[in-house]
């Protein structure tokens, strides 16, 4: 199987094990999520400096003294242990994915795509020693869950057994161990779209739970009827969290390619609408574009990074562009700071 095929999100959808998918994606991507601003006692040697009164005695490089007969201390780069959350919208609307005409393979849903992104991000984080957590947003399911699937018929509980709010289906606090990563991948693997979108509720929960200066990666279609969702994200910014929103949308939702008379069924509610697509296309596209523009504007105003993530594109390319932008931004901050 060629590397290009591996990068094809539709091809990845056939792969059984998520961690593999995540790793394959991740290994194609450069690392280097962050650099700490702080220099001091370092985990990694950075440079020597002549001893000055006040420096830590334990940092004196005795070998250098033996050779040079002068006292030098070692400077280390202190790599902060980043705490990151992956907030994954697993509401019913994320289950949309159109099967291409004539294709035999199952469609790639927005949730599938978001899972890939989420898994890749988590892998990256843990691999480089950071902590990655997972928050699955989505109100409890109403249908009987299939065997092996996560049931949300009863209130969800976190790892400590505490009851989770209705907007949160699953919560895995950030850890940096490999075992934690495996468990996170497992959760992602078994995740199914269900329930109404309540991103605001999930983000509010996260805002209470997370440490300051955490990174939050939101993977959602943002089809939240409540206008509080974006306001809740702004609240995370107030807690000095770095927020990035990956706006996952299906190409159908962006292009509205329907032609035949269609009865459109809502995925999170009882909406039903029979219409001839030609008569509603223009209006729909107007609405969706306005929605996208408004979302971008509000997130920009809140200093939240917005990443458009249509499921028709390659997730590795998406992440690559994202990480490059991050590194460039970090470099600019280092030069400036």
């Amino acid at each position, binding site marked *: 199987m060629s590397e290009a095929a591996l990068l094809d999100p539709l091809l990845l959808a056939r792969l059984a094990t998520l961690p593999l998918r995540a790793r394959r994606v991740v290994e194609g991507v450069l690392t280097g999520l962050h650099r700490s601003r702080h220099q001091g006692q370092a985990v990694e040697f950075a440079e020597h400096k002549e001893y000055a009164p006040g420096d830590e005695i334990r940092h004196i490089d005795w070998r250098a003294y033996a050779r040079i007969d002068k006292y030098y201390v070692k400077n280390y780069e202190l790599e902060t242990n980043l705490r990151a959350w992956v907030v994954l919208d697993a509401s*019913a*609307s*994320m*289950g*949309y994915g159109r099967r291409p005409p004539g294709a035999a393979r199952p469609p790639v849903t*927005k949730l599938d795509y978001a899972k890939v992104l989420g898994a890749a991000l988590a892998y990256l984080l843990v691999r480089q020693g950071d902590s990655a957590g997972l928050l699955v947003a989505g109100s409890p399911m109403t249908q009987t869950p299939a065997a092996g699937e996560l049931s949300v018929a009863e209130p969800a509980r976190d790892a400590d057994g505490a009851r989770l709010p209705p907007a949160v289906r699953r919560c895995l606090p950030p850890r940096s161990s490999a075992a934690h990563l495996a468990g996170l991948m497992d959760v992602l693997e078994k995740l199914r779209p269900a329930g109404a979108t309540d991103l605001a509720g999930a983000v509010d929960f996260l805002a209470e739970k997370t440490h300051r200066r955490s990174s939050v990666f939101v993977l959602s*279609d943002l*089809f939240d*009827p409540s206008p509080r969702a974006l306001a809740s994200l702004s609240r995370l910014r107030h807690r000095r969290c770095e927020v990035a929103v990956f706006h996952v949308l*299906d190409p*159908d*939702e962006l292009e509205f390619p*329907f032609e*035949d*008379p*269609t*009865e*459109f*069924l*809502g*995925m*999170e509610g009882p*909406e039903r*609408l*029979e*219409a*001839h697509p*030609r*008569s*509603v296309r*223009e*209006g*729909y596209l*107007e*609405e*969706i574009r306005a*929605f996208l523009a408004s979302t971008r504007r509000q997130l920009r105003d809140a200093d939240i990074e917005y990443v458009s993530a249509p499921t028709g594109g390659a997730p590795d390319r998406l992440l690559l562009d994202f990480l490059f932008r991050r590194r460039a931004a970090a470099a600019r901050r280092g030069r400036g700071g």
Partner: protein
Amino acid sequence: MGSLALANPWLVWGLLAAGVPVLIHLLSRRRARQVAFAAVEFILRSRQQKARSVRLRQILLLLARTALVAAVALAILRPMLQPKAAAAAQTGPAATAIVLDASLSMRWKDGATPLFDRARAEAKSLLDALPAEAPATLLVCDGTAPEAEPPGFDRAAIARRLAAAQAGWRPADVTACTSAAARALGSSPLKAFRVYVLGDLTSPSIRLDAPAPRVPTPTGEVAPEVVFIDAARDSPMPNLAVTDVHLAPSAALGTRGFEITATVRNSGDRPAENAPVSLRAAGRVLVRGFVDVPAHASARKVLAHRFDAGTILADVALEPDALAEDDVRAFVLRVPRDVRALVVDGAPAAVRQKDEAFFVDAALGPGRTGGRIAATFLDADAARSRPLEPFDVVLLLNLPAPAPAWASALRAFVERGGGLFLSGGDNVVPDDWNAAFGELLPRPLHLVRTTAEPGETSGPPPARFARVDFAHPALSLFEGADEGFETARVFRHVLLQPDARRDERVLAWLDDGSPAIIEARRGLGRVVFYTSTVDRDWTDWPIRTSFLPAIQQLVAYLAGGLDEKPPAPSSPGDERTLDVPPGARVETVTGPDGKPARVEETRVKVAMPGHHAVVLREGAGTRDAPELAFAAVLDTRETDTTRIDPKELERHFGGEAQARIADDASGALPKSGTPLWSWLLVAAIAAFLTEGVLVRRG
């Protein structure tokens, strides 16, 4: 609005096809492919804004398709919209009467076409368009008693009568004619009755106070359908007319001067300003003036002129308008010629004031009469040898009884038309006079009566004028000024025998019951006997204010200058009896058109307005008789061309369902209705195009 009729009613089931678009619409709402779509909310949002327009478009589309099919289906039914009158009209052939207004106002010209000609042509069109099974009759309403023949099928005869019909000169009662026509229809066995009235709808010819026409049928009276064909085609008929002429002597113009007062009526909606008015005689314009007449009003114009003596055939004329016939009104004027009087003084005196003829001389002098009376004063001896032919009037003032020869000459003079004035006095011996004058006197004389002595203050009072016949032409001037007679005292007068004679008339009475002035007609002339004196011997009347003018008037009367009233005019259609003198007969009467009028003995059938000249045959010869000439004038009712309100007309004759007004025959004939199928096809095409636009825009 009328009623809807269908030419193909059996195809009404086709309207069911209009339900097909609805059915298709319902069936076309098939179960669409279901798609679970996460962004359905955005569709809903956009649809909320477009919901109304989309729904409206769907509704319009359904309506357009339904209308298209329904319009085609209805067009196939060939619907017709029938007016109310047609809906109410009885079905089948109708017994038909055609009433043609032939009154004077139908001579009114629209351009160059008289309304009568137009109406007659429309009547002919109606006649030609009548179904063969519809019996018809014609009534020409010309002012004579309306009588219509029962309806028949001889169209040719009706057509001939129609062709021969002419507009008359008289007013016509169109209402009466319509009723007569309706009555004539009752003899038809048909159930439907229709009366066409062709006229100008002027208000004088239609009486809305008369009952509406009814057709007598065995089952009762039925109202016929009445259709008016307006020959004037709903246009106004402005008209100026001379409706009256009044003649009066003009003191300002002296003798033979007359004032002619013409009354002009304006029947138009606009005032007439500076309308020319002319006085004409013998083909010449004598006087011209201008008159302003307000709309629907009358005004008077006075024209004055001094005529030559004799019988004047004149008229007052306006400039010809659409109804030129009433722009001229003829009249006959008797203008007295100068009177030549022979005054025979029976008691001349050296002292002028004591002369018998002194006061008569004063009365007849040129200064007082303006030269109208030329008087010759002679004594009795001179007068006897004077021929009497040159004179018009002979005055014998206090003469002794004339010799038989002279009396005979006087008699012949009077018989030939001369006037004789006789006055009393001391020389008048009643018996001698009776013997000399005989029947020439109005009444035989009796004796002289003295009531008082002049100058006496005691004793019985003198006689006075008690009663004066101011209706007499000679004394009409004094009506209202009695004091000239009342104050006169008569001390002595001649009593007349009480036997009344033929053709006598007492002009004035004294208070003792005896005539003071009496006249009689003898032959062609007249004799007036004044029972007192013309000087102050027997009376002081000569010094009263009324004496001089009375003498003038009596002389003028005797000369024929103050005859009876001007001859009354006749009207077309009248039969006038001429006052033919004994021994003469009417030779011809020439009408205004120069053609002889129909004459039976002394009765003339007046056919048209204008002057009529009379020629008499007397013995072996003929002579013009200007004294018998007369004018015929129009009945002024027909000069009012104000048109009647059509709504009032319809209402009177039974409302819209029973009566209507049309401009011509084609509009008058029963309508089969207005076809609607073409409009329905237009509607279908419009619906088709609308459907196309809506589909394209969807």
